[in-house]
């Protein structure tokens, strides 16, 4: 009886595999198209004159749908093909900068990039559709900026060339500043100013680090593969400084403690689709960069900075965990919670093993989905309840049962309940910590599961339980708001039930990138060295 | 007693110093202007002196003199523009004391 689904899946994957080999030309164009289409749509919307609202919405919808669906398609083809975590769908285009700077338009997906790419597509679809029906003022401008963001995000995770990696990141980052300033909640001007300066600083430090790295490796191509190839086996001096630059630069962008203060206020003040895309996808840029660039190329530097990273990550987890518990505003709480979860990911990186890094990637993808979902639902809660202050909300459960169910599910996912995607990543990180140089960190890290349960359940209880307070004008969550949420929830569920979707490419990708980092188990029967 | 190059240069430097100190220390814009012209005159004098004393019978140096003609012409233009600005300033704030002209400050 279990044979039937297995046979079905085998058939599907055989189809996808043959598609992968035969349609490789199409896939190359698809990669470029996924980045270009949102940008083209944004341009079209910007230059065209008066357009009826439906046209605007339709154009934007296409702009979000195409990258989303193509990311899922490419992901399916990749999963079905036997790549051992290597690169697929490579695009290599010379734009005239190659001779002097070694910069090509080099796109490609490997085992580590693929889950992030799919995350960008999925969350982009959800955020885009939520934005389209959100009815904000100046919808057209909003959608244009959001489309630019989406194009940038697709480019970030499919770039192999480092300069384009950074370039697309800026593409995705800068619209957020504008969107917070125009469509944000109260206090948006100050927050936009702070976020702009802070994140630009982080980006500049990152750029300095990346360029310095390029110069030191002496590679001919300013790309991840090029630098790895130039470096294979040999090290070079100044790894500590370089890694420090990259860690701090990426760290600012990822809200590493103590560079985290911009994050909660930015996410709380930003409009929901912006928060979804930023907290859900854009933040992962920093950790993705560390995993793909800094850690493989700078192992000595990583070891040197390990102890400091340990304390900073614990700061994220415990200090910000307590800060989150003290929050009264729902969106501020979610923003702080997102900062806290980055602590888990950094601890996974700190463990510096295949388990740790692989689990960190899984956790980041899951976190992206769950935090985007939570911000979406928190926005719906705020719209229905009139406020985001949890002490004033209450008793919404009887009037908005569907919203309550979705919110509780999203919160459970965020807390790390098995059955949702976050569990696998967090479990892997915990397992890897015991084998790290400092096993005691596991005891502190696990406190995080208690802390997250406390604030998560408190939020659900405050908002939804209790006697109903006042009227809810618009009723329960609408269909147009529900479908983006269900999309994200379905993804969380699917990965939660079947983690191999993400863990297989990640596992192979990480083993390829870090072949000597599998930890050793000393079993009583002798040493079982489980490297593959 | 023959007058050498050093004597002309000495006068030139003296004139330049007087002009420079005047620019630094005088408060009336017109006086500052006149001191600016004084500095220009000083440089003119020095140039002509160099031209006169460094040319030999076989190789007369005309560069200094030509330079001086340029300076005179440009000085005239500059004075015209500057005086126009001062007149406009007078029409605006009825004074040409440097101490009163402070609008471009922090």
């Amino acid at each position: 009886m279990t044979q039937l689904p297995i046979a079905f899946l085998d058939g599907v994957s055989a189809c996808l595999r043959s598609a992968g080999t035969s349609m490789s030309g199409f896939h190359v164009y698809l990669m470029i198209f996924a980045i270009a289409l949102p940008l083209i749509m944004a341009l079209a919307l910007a230059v065209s004159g008066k357009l009826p609202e439906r046209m605007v919405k339709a154009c934007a919808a296409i702009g979000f749908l195409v990258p989303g669906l193509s990311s899922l398609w490419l992901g399916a083809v990749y999963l079905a093909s036997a790549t051992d975590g290597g690169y697929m769908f490579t695009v290599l285009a010379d734009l005239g900068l190659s001779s002097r700077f070694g910069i090509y338009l080099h796109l490609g997906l490997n085992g580590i990039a693929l889950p992030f790419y799919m995350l960008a597509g999925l969350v982009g679809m959800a955020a885009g559709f939520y934005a389209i029906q959100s009815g904000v003022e100046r919808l057209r401008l909003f959608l244009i900026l959001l489309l630019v963001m989406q194009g940038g995000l697709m480019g970030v995770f499919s770039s192999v060339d480092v300069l384009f990696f950074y370039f697309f990141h800026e593409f995705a980052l800068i619209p957020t500043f504008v969107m917070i300033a125009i469509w944000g909640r109260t206090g948006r001007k100050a927050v936009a100013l702070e976020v702009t300066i802070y994140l630009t600083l982080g980006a500049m430090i990152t750029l300095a680090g990346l360029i310095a790295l390029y110069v030191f490796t002496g590679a001919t191509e300013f790309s991840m593969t090029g630098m790895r190839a130039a470096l294979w086996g040999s090290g070079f001096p100044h790894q500590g400084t370089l890694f420090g630059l990259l860690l701090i630069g990426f760290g600012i962008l990822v809200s590493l403690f103590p560079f985290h203060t911009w994050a909660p206020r930015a996410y709380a003040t930003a409009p929901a689709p912006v928060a979804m895309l930023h907290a859900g996808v854009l933040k992962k840029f920093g950790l993705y960069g560390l995993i793909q660039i800094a850690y493989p190329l700078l192992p000595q530097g990583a070891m040197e900075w390990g102890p400091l990273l340990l304390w900073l990550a614990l700061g994220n987890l415990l200090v910000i965990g307590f800060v989150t518990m003290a929050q009264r505003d729902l969106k501020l709480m979610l923003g702080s919670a997102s900062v806290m979860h980055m602590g888990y990911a950094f601890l996974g990186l700190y463990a510096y093993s295949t388990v740790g890094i692989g689990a960190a990637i899984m956790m980041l993808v899951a976190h992206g989905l769950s935090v985007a979902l939570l911000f979406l639902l928190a926005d719906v809660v705020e719209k229905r309840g009139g406020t985001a202050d949890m002490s004033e909300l209450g008793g919404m459960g009887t009037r908005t049962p569907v919203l309550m169910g979705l919110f509780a599910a999203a919160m459970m996912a965020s807390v790390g309940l098995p059955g949702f995607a976050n569990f696998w990543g967090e479990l892997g990180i915990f397992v890897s910590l015991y084998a790290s140089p400092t096993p005691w960190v596991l005891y502190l890290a696990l406190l995080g599961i208690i802390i997250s349960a406390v604030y998560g359940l408190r939020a659900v209880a405050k908002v939804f339980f209790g006697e109903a307070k006042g009227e809810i004008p618009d009723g329960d969550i609408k269909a147009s708001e529900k479908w983006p949420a269900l999309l994200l929830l379905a993804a969380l569920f699917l990965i939660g039930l079947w983690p191999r979707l993400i863990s297989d490419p990640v596992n192979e990708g990480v083993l390829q990138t870090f072949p000597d980092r599998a930890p050793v188990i000393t079993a009583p029967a002798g040493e079982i060295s489980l490297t593959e | 007693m023959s007058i050498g190059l050093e004597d002309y240069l000495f006068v030139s430097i003296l004139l330049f110093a007087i002009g420079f100190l005047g620019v630094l220390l005088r408060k009336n814009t017109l006086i500052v202007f006149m001191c600016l012209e004084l500095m220009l005159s000083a440089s003119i004098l020095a140039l002509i002196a160099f031209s006169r004393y460094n040319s030999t019978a076989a190789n007369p140096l005309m560069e200094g003199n030509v330079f001086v003609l340029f300076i005179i012409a440009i000085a005239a233009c500059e004075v015209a523009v500057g005086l126009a600005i001062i007149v406009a300033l007078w029409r605006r704030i009825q004074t040409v004391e440097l101490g009163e002209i402070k609008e471009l400050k922090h």
Partner: protein
Amino acid sequence: MDLGTVLSMILLAPLLAAGLIWMFARQRAVLAMTLSLAAAATILGLSLWLYFQLWDGTAYEVSMEWMRLGPLQLSVGFLLNDLSALMLFVVGFVGFWIHLFSVGYMNDDPARGRFFGGLSIFMFSMLGIVLADNLFMMFIFWELVGFSSYMLIGHYITTDEAAQASKKAFIVNRVGDFGFLIGIIMVYWTFGTVSLGGLQELAHHSPDSVTTAMGLLLFCGVLGKSAQMPLHVWLPDAMAGPTPISALIHAATMVAAGVYFLGRTFFLFTGEALHIISWVGVVTALCAAIWAFGQRDIKKILAYSTLSQLGYMVAGFGMGSLYGLHHGDGHGAALYYGIGASMFHLTTHAFFKALLFLGSGSVIHACHHEQDIFEMGGLYKKMPLTTLTFAAGVIAIAGVPFIGAAFFSKDAILYVAKMTNFPAFLILTGTALLTALYMGRLFVIAFLGKPNSKSAEHAHESPWTIVLPLVVLAVCSVAGGYAGLYPERLGVLVQNWVPLAHGSDHTLMLVISAVASVVGLGLAGLVYGFGSKTDRVEDKAPPVYAFAKSKFYFDEIYNAYVAKVQDRLADFVSFLDTLFISGLLVKGTAAVAGLFGIGARRVHTGSVAAYVWWFFFGLLLFGAFAGGFLDGILQK
């Protein structure tokens, strides 16, 4: 059909029901009830088929890799042996009757769809724990059971108690899971595997790898799930949920999962660990029994009773295993005595505690949601069947010889206590007396005498969907003590591995049980009086009553901790974060940059003369540079 498929069907049937309910039957109560009940029936039916036809009794293990990250391999699989067979039966059997009961009991509830969906999710999670073949899988379902419990305790979402109780249950469980997960990870890195079969072998080959710390950390999970002290505080509050939930989750199955886990991983506990475990169980049993005397709510009394009996089970495991260590070959099969003792009591307890809770549900339903026993009274006339079955339950829990199931199971525990730890034996015997006393108190006040309130007067017998499960469970409560009655496949544990007293000890145990139960019940009648309106102990001996009611201030201490320590710490840290990091570091840096700006602005005085001075100084600087005076500084 092979065993693996059947087990998968057993596991997935309730999940399927829950999925269908979520998709189609959220508002359609009848459809939801049917789906859930069908799933429960499927589970029971397939399990019975398994025992009587399909399974030959040998241990069956199958597993499939589910995720791999480097050397970490997580798999799902089933392990069917005598222990899981018994537990599967308990869960399936009791679960089915409680499903049936819920159909009648929840008939006026507007959120039935959500309730039955949650019930099915719970069955799925619980079966996952029962059938799991490795520790990570068990942990997954452990968490899922915690979630189902959260969802179901919080069923009445409009009440504040439900919100607080469900939160408390989940968080206290998480505190236990904290130690639990550390223990599992420690086991993984020490042995290289978490598969139960593999661990048993490895632990057998190298007993030194098993450390006390490992065992105690794993026991943390049991502390949380089975509500042992000091993590017991969530169980009484969990009574805020509907009564069928209290019966199923918080009496019969979920809380017993901790004891089941001990049985599954018995080889990971050293002698010291077992000693500590035993004492935790004994202390819990005693304290909970004392606290039961201070309660007026019928469900709360039963909740403390559950706590007490769970203490018995845990103590039985600990001391039974120690007994096996000393009387057997040290490791291996003799340790099964601990499993036998605790599982036997778990089984009988599941029967009579579910019966008692369902009976209380019948009473609450009939008295229109009155839960205070002093407002009841005289129910024996209005609800004869309920009274009779409830009496069977009371007799069972008190351990009346031969007709109460707990007589046999508690006996075994008392016997191993006597053989390994005499002080514990004395305490447990005293607790047995207390058990009979407080259960007797409950029975005589609520059921006997005259009605004390309008709702008690208007009580009437409940419909068949409520009464039938009571009757079935009452029969089991009487018959469940007779190990010989268990079918062959189920009864392996209870027939072979329950430590029975021999010879003079046998008579001693009999006498002790008889005295404790009969004297306890009789004393209850005398002291409290039939159908009293007030608690006589409260009236005549207030300090005693206050002592019992205080619950030793655990709840107050925890609440104070949360309000005074944790929340204040959170606010303080948040304040520091805003002050130092956001304020000093970030805004401070901005201020420093601003200072530079202010400094630079001062140059623009607007005075032409000043600008000319600056020009002069710049000229000097350039001249010096050109003339080579600054070479020393610049080190060209």
